[in-house]
């Protein structure tokens, strides 16, 4: 839902600052230069929040607030006063008419947003150009962990990604870092002293900029009580130590809602290549399977009707891989696509050992498979099985 915020201030400067402050959030800003204009806009737009100055020409903020509160159609609109008028008696007088909050100028944009987010559930804009969309886009990951070896391990494990992974050791450093740059994902070690991991988590969730940021808990595998506590308070995911960085990468991508299809599917030349990585964990298989039908259909739609299924990086077969390959070949048949398999001696040998895979034929290299598929006619017959 896109919130409507009305700023009523005779100063164009303040109205611009308000607009600037709300820019990162999914809301529409309306402006009025005095109480009369403010009431007119409020009647027409029925905003979700009004930011109101006091000293204005034509009709001041106190008069506008009084009229607003006496209008049955408008009286429920929450009002936050944003004014240089901060004398105790005046504030009390205005508060009695009915305001949700009171902010005295000068004000910091962050404080304005924080106060407003208590009234309306501000959500960051999703269309921001800096936001990661695919696995190939940069993203900022913050690790809050007092053991440098763990930070290094995660940084090493994710160094092949375009993600910038920064580590800090304390809650204070984390808050400082989050204030400077809002991370796309945060990992917090539950072993931080004095339960500060949970305190930090609560602070993150009450900050309007990070309340929707995925937060992972880092915890030793055997610490089941801490894991349960983390799940109860609402951590996005639990990562157990010792850390499987491949699993971590998959969970990070999922939590950031990234398009990870490029890991497995790519258009190369005149055909699509489906490529499975060396380690095919159940998470990897599930991820590749989720994209299979849409990516194949997308390729056909774009005029590509040949697929190379490349499994030469895989060290050993298991049932999950076999099922996925059957599913890929069946999808090719359904879409009348030609396909070829690329494997290594180990995989080829293991396939000979199963009844269902004994008949599969593999090329030794991607180039051979591409050449062969390129030569074949446009008929939808299988290139190799």
């Amino acid at each position, binding site marked *: 839902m896109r919130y409507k915020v009305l700023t009523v201030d*005779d*100063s*164009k*400067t*303040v109205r*611009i*600052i308000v607009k*600037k402050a709300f820019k990162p959030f999914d809301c529409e800003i309306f402006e009025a230069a005095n109480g009369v204009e403010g009431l007119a806009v409020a009647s027409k737009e029925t905003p979700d929040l009004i930011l109101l100055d006091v*000293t*204005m*020409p034509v009709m001041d903020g106190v008069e506008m607030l009084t009229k607003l509160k006496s209008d049955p159609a408008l009286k429920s609109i929450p009002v936050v006063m944003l*004014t*240089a*008028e*901060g*004398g*105790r*008696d*005046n504030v009390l007088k205005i508060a009695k008419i009915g305001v949700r909050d009171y902010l*005295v*100028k*000068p*004000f*910091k944009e962050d404080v304005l947003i924080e106060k407003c987010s208590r009234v309306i559930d501000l959500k960051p804009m999703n269309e921001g150009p800096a936001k990661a969309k695919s696995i190939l886009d940069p993203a900022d990951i913050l690790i809050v962990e007092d053991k440098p070896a763990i930070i290094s391990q995660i940084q090493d494990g994710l160094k092949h990604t375009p993600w910038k992974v920064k580590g800090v050791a304390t809650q204070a450093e984390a808050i400082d870092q989050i204030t400077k740059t809002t991370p796309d994902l945060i990992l917090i070690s539950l072993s931080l002293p004095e339960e500060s991991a949970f305190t930090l988590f609560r602070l993150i969730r009450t900050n309007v900029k990070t309340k929707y940021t995925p937060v992972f808990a880092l915890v030793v595998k055997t610490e089941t009580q801490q894991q349960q506590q983390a799940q109860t308070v609402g951590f996005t995911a639990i990562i157990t130590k010792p850390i499987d960085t491949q699993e971590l990468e998959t969970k990070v991508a999922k939590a950031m809602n990234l398009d990870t299809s490029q890991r497995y599917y790519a258009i190369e030349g005149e055909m699509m290549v489906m490529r499975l990585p060396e380690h095919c964990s159940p998470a990897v298989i599930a991820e590749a399977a989720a994209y299979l039908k849409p990516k194949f259909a997308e390729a056909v739609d774009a005029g590509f009707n040949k697929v190379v299924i490349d499994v030469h990086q895989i060290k050993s077969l298991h049932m999950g891989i076999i099922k996925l390959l059957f599913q890929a070949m069946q999808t090719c048949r359904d879409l009348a696509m030609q396909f070829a398999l690329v494997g290594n001696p180990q995989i080829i040998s293991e396939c000979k050992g199963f009844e269902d895979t004994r008949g599969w034929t593999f090329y030794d290299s991607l180039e051979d498979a591409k050449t062969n598929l390129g030569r074949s006619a446009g008929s939808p017959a299988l290139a190799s099985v």
Partner: protein
Amino acid sequence: MPATAEITEALIRENINRAVTDVFKTMLGRTPTFCSQGEYVKGKMLVTSEPNRPQVVGTVGFIGECNGLIYLHLDLAFAKVCTCHLLGMTDKELEMAGDEVINDAIGELTNMTVGSFKNALCDAGYPCKLTIPSILRGTNFSIEPISSAVRHIYYFDCAEHRVIADILMKSDE
């Protein structure tokens, strides 16, 4: 209610120092330092930098149990820097936007400064309200108070610029 004569110079100095510091620090990310207290000499100009440089002066009054007016003097170059920072504009964008934007921004800075100053007076037992801001612009001009006004002038240094708070308060008589 205390007589306005009880508003001592020390209280005024403390309030204006707090107000200028608070506004410039919060809105502009700059910390001004109180430099000196000036003395009014009839007909003498208050200049923030060298003479013959254009000045932008914001004015906001306060009316109630105590009455007065504060002029906030900035040289045009600093006024532009402040406006760009407040509005997140580049020099070029500001040039295209024109003087009105600078006037509005300096008017608002003055409004906030005088607001902070008068809020402290309100809390000290002198309830009063703000007036709408106005702007004076020019080069080589002086502002003359009426004879019944008490005048206090305070100089601040802020990021290699001089800011002057010129306070005129109506006396009891």
